[in-house]
């Protein structure tokens, strides 16, 4: 036991019969869990440095390594678990706010897994998407109240919109929180698959302006990297008010991660902290939000859709109604399981509400008020696979953002240490020795593959329901049934129980 009372979280098991002391693990671990003992002429490990990112396990040429959870050594206690005790040791040793990466990992209910999809049997035919046309085309933006035609041609002037071939976008992750190679991977994959990626609040690197047509540029409270060129570079602008992983608090990129490239892209001096205040100090009301939306529209000559991203919080439906009325073209709702490059643990794990309930509540509210057509809704957080996408759309989303799933496609192993900047997979780091591990060509291909695979699966599920256009599923909650849900949950989700 070390002096700070902490025991290792993980055990590194090295099979000495297999290990050839080649030191691949030593070179691969940015956390310095492995080292070469020159005297003994063998590789040794320090369990306490391991974060279970699995990099060494994957890279070991002889499969000599495995990582296990360190056996629970505390006396069993359902209230005072090992985790809760260790948290106190850490804070007692440092006096610091516990900071972590990735989304809420606590066992709250996952509503996606309590909703089941319908399929056609006898009374209506299912459709085989391999042989029949299936439309996933999605437009994000305001819908005109009515369409007018003259001599067969559309004469209504359509508001600016984003056109997606698939209802999945890559969520906002800033350059700084993730590497340039990760940005390049997502930008290229977006272009390839006809969708969009989002810069997050960290500016747009000059090498990525070429992907502007598939880029959503974000404007947040710190206004990093925001100038007229940036605003006009993207296909849309997203105002970030909040993030699911840390509703109500700002961002803070430590100076260590602000190297010259991040500095150039954010337009701040190298090595300085990039602090995003908790609120936008020019927004204290819906009217103020309207003002920011329209200042951005003015600055881009009304050519780009402007959206607003909020975290799913208690009054999300009323807030969304205000955002729609403030003139936003789309609303992004980020649920309490949304990921992060860094957030205080307590906020990440205890603030906000599940996206499934928030999404249903917002869609219902906007419909009840007759303003659902004013905006598109993008649902963000905890989308793990294509059936989650289909369920989100049936609940009322126009499209979904994926962040964590996208990073996993690039190689992330969910060790939740994004905040340390020592990502051994080259994703959540700015260390050039680590970032080069992510090849953007390969990354783009893997992210694009994921989108393509999900696209096929979505078509299969739609076909199974006898639906040939995604538009017919949007807000079509009859296609969902709940299991193991209370009446109250079913009511908020606006779905029937299985068997009804």
């Amino acid at each position, binding site marked *: 036991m070390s002096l700070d009372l902490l025991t290792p979280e993980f055990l590194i098991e090295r099979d000495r019969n297999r290990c050839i002391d080649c030191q691949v693990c030593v070179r691969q671990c940015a956390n310095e869990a492995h080292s070469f003992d020159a005297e003994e002429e063998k590789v040794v490990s320090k369990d306490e440095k391991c974060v279970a990112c699995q990099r060494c396990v994957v890279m070991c040429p002889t499969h000599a390594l495995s990582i296990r959870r360190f056996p629970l050594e505390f006396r069993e206690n359902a209230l005072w678990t090992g985790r809760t005790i260790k*948290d106190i040791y*850490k*804070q007692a*040793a*440092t006096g*610091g*706010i*516990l*900071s*972590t990466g990735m989304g809420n990992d606590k066992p709250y209910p996952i509503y996606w897994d309590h909703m089941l999809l319908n399929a056609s049997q006898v009374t209506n035919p299912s459709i085989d998407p391999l042989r029949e046309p299936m439309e996933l085309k999605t437009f994000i933006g305001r819908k005109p109240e009515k369409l007018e035609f003259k001599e067969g041609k559309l004469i209504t002037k359509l508001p600016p919109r984003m056109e997606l071939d698939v209802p999945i976008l890559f969520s906002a992750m800033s350059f700084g929180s993730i590497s340039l190679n990760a940005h390049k991977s997502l930008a290229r994959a977006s272009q390839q698959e006809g969708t969009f990626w989002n810069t997050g609040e960290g500016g747009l690197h000059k090498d990525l302006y070429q992907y502007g047509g598939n880029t959503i540029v974000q404007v947040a*409270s*710190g*206004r990093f990297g*925001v*100038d*007229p060129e940036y*605003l*006009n570079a993207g296909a849309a602008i997203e105002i970030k008010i909040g993030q699911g992983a840390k509703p109500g608090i700002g961002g*803070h990129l*430590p*100076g260590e991660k602000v190297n010259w490239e991040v*500095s150039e892209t954010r*337009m*701040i*001096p190298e090595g*300085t*902290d990039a*602090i995003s*205040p908790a609120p936008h*100090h*020019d927004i204290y009301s819906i009217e103020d939000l309207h*003002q*920011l939306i*329209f*200042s951005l529209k*003015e*600055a*881009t*000559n009304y050519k780009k859709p402007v959206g607003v991203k909020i975290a799913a919080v208690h009054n999300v439906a009323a807030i969304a109604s205000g955002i729609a009325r403030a003139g936003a073209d789309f609303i992004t709702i980020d649920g309490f399981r949304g990921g992060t490059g860094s957030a*205080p*643990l307590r906020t990440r794990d205890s603030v906000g509400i599940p996206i499934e309930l928030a999404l249903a509540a917002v869609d219902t509210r906007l419909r009840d008020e007759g303003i659902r057509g004013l905006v598109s809704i993008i649902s963000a957080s905890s989308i793990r696979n294509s059936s989650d996408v289909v369920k989100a759309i049936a609940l009322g989303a126009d499209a979904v953002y994926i962040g964590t799933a996208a990073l996993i496609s690039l190689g992330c192993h969910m060790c*939740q*240490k994004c*905040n*340390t900047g020592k990502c051994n997979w080259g994703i959540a780091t700015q260390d050039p020795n680590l970032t080069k591990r992510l090849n953007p060509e390969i990354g783009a291909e893997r992210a694009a593959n994921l989108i393509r695979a999900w696209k096929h699966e979505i078509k299969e599920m739609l076909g199974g329901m006898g639906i040939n256009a995604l538009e017919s599923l949007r807000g079509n909650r009859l296609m969902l049934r709940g299991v193991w849900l209370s009446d109250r949950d079913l009511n908020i989700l606006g779905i029937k129980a299985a068997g009804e």
Partner: protein
Amino acid sequence: MRIDAKGMYYRQLNQLVKEAVAQGEKEIVLDNINGQRYIGDGVRGDVRIVINGTPGNDMAAYMDGPELIVNANGQDAPANTMNDGKIVIHGSAGDTVGYAMRGGKVFVRNNVGYRVGIHMKEYQDKVPAIVVGGKAGDFFGEYMAGGILMLLGLDLPEGQEMVGNYCGTGMHGGVMYVRGEVPEYKLGKEVKVVEMTEVDDAKVKELVEEFCSYFGYDPAEVLAEKFYKLIPFNKRPYGNLYCTY
């Protein structure tokens, strides 16, 4: 060219201004301005726009180069995220003047509201400056990350204080020059008062002279008072706030 903005909706007005700029107009005079928002937003180039009347909120947001002369008061958030250019306001201005401003200069003859210069930045050759002739509200220079904020306290009535509370709270870059002493209790905990250097004196002189050239003050008289320099204790005020879970 002149545009009579009487009763004109902001969208139409701003479109006319942008069209004129696109056609290479170098001086545009806007008459009868009465609260139209977003004047100069996102406009680039070296045009001079004279605004006769009170412009609305978010004037010169994201602006990149032009010069705006306001012959009246300004409202909230002029120079919001401004990249470059100059604004001269012959009157007072509201809250959050120069929010996240990255470049250019703002001169306000009289007073400004709350949170002025919030999150002002600097980057390479871009060092923005805001010079306020009168007094400022609370949270002057909040989260300031770069640039220069100057407060002159001219013509204040007896008993009026030039600096509000929480001055420089969260400041982690840039510098403030205040003409007169700031009571300790008004300073944010991230800010300290330090001695002026020759470089500071030169910078103050340069900005004061420019300020006086617009508003008809005598630079020698303004510079006769002692200036105080405020800087952050630390460029990384929150560097030790966290531990890894």
